[in-house]
């Protein structure tokens, strides 16, 4: 796995290979090498910020509990008038500068690339593993592709983003807590087995 700073230290917590139970349907674990930017619309400027993002990137900022965009640039709702913007890792600070240039004084932009890490959990039994860890209803009737929820996992703040129906989940956690988070997640995944590639 080739992961750049600052996510290499988190990726190093996962050892390549198969772990845990064998013979079932193992889940897959990986660390995504991404830039993460937080966008907060300034007071009364949410519509201006949304219009600016639409003009620059071609999609509407998502409503509560949802995501928008795609793998090139995804927007996740995290709080009223607040979103995460996530893109593949590029030049240091480039995404934050581009988003700030797009929204101008309609929003505040904070680069969270070093502060947050994104751990991907996928596979047919990923929901089963994640359900052991969190209190959010992940049943397809209540959750699904394009849905986002901020909650606690192992007493740590975590934002869950379901990216597709495989299912694939992005788990966004504070980098400084990523080691404890990973210990809990890999422990939960031992029951199905997990593969790190």
């Amino acid at each position: 796995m080739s992961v750049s700073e600052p996510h290499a230290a988190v990726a190093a917590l996962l050892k390549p290979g198969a772990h845990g139970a064998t013979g079932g349907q193992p889940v897959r674990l990986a660390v995504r090498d991404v830039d993460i930017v937080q966008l907060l619309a300034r007071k009364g400027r949410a519509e201006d910020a949304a219009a600016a993002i639409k003009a620059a990137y071609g999609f509407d900022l998502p409503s509560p509990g949802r995501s928008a965009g795609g793998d090139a640039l995804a927007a996740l709702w995290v709080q009223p008038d607040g979103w995460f913007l996530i893109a593949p890792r590029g030049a240091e600070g480039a995404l934050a500068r581009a988003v700030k240039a797009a929204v101008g004084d309609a929003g505040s932009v904070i680069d969270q690339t070093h502060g947050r890490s994104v751990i991907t959990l996928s596979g047919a039994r990923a929901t089963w593993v994640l359900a052991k860890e969190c209190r959010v209803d992940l049943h397809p009737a209540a959750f699904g592709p394009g849905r986002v929820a901020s909650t606690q996992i192992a007493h740590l703040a975590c934002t869950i983003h379901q990216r597709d129906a495989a299912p694939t989940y992005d788990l966004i956690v504070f980098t400084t807590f990523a080691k404890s988070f990973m210990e809990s997640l890999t422990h939960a995944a031992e029951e199905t087995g997990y593969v790190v590639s």
Partner: protein
Amino acid sequence: MIRIDCPWCGMRDEAEFTYRGDATVTRPGANAPEEAFHDFVYARQNPRGWHVEWWYHSSGCRQFLKVVRHTMTHEVRTVARATETPEVPSE
């Protein structure tokens, strides 16, 4: 376990929230007499029945919510945004 239907996030367990106290009292103005602050801080009601409370969704959307909760049964009747005035049942 109390379950709170957050207007932003949907139904969540109380473990995601932080209790922030009585939402029916108003902080006195900066120039109010000392007695007013004494009453604001210490002279609180302890109702048996429906009560409006602040709950902070600390592990979710980080918004302050007004929750109408029954202090005997823990039933949650209404969850409102901070700017709203939820209706309190008569009994």
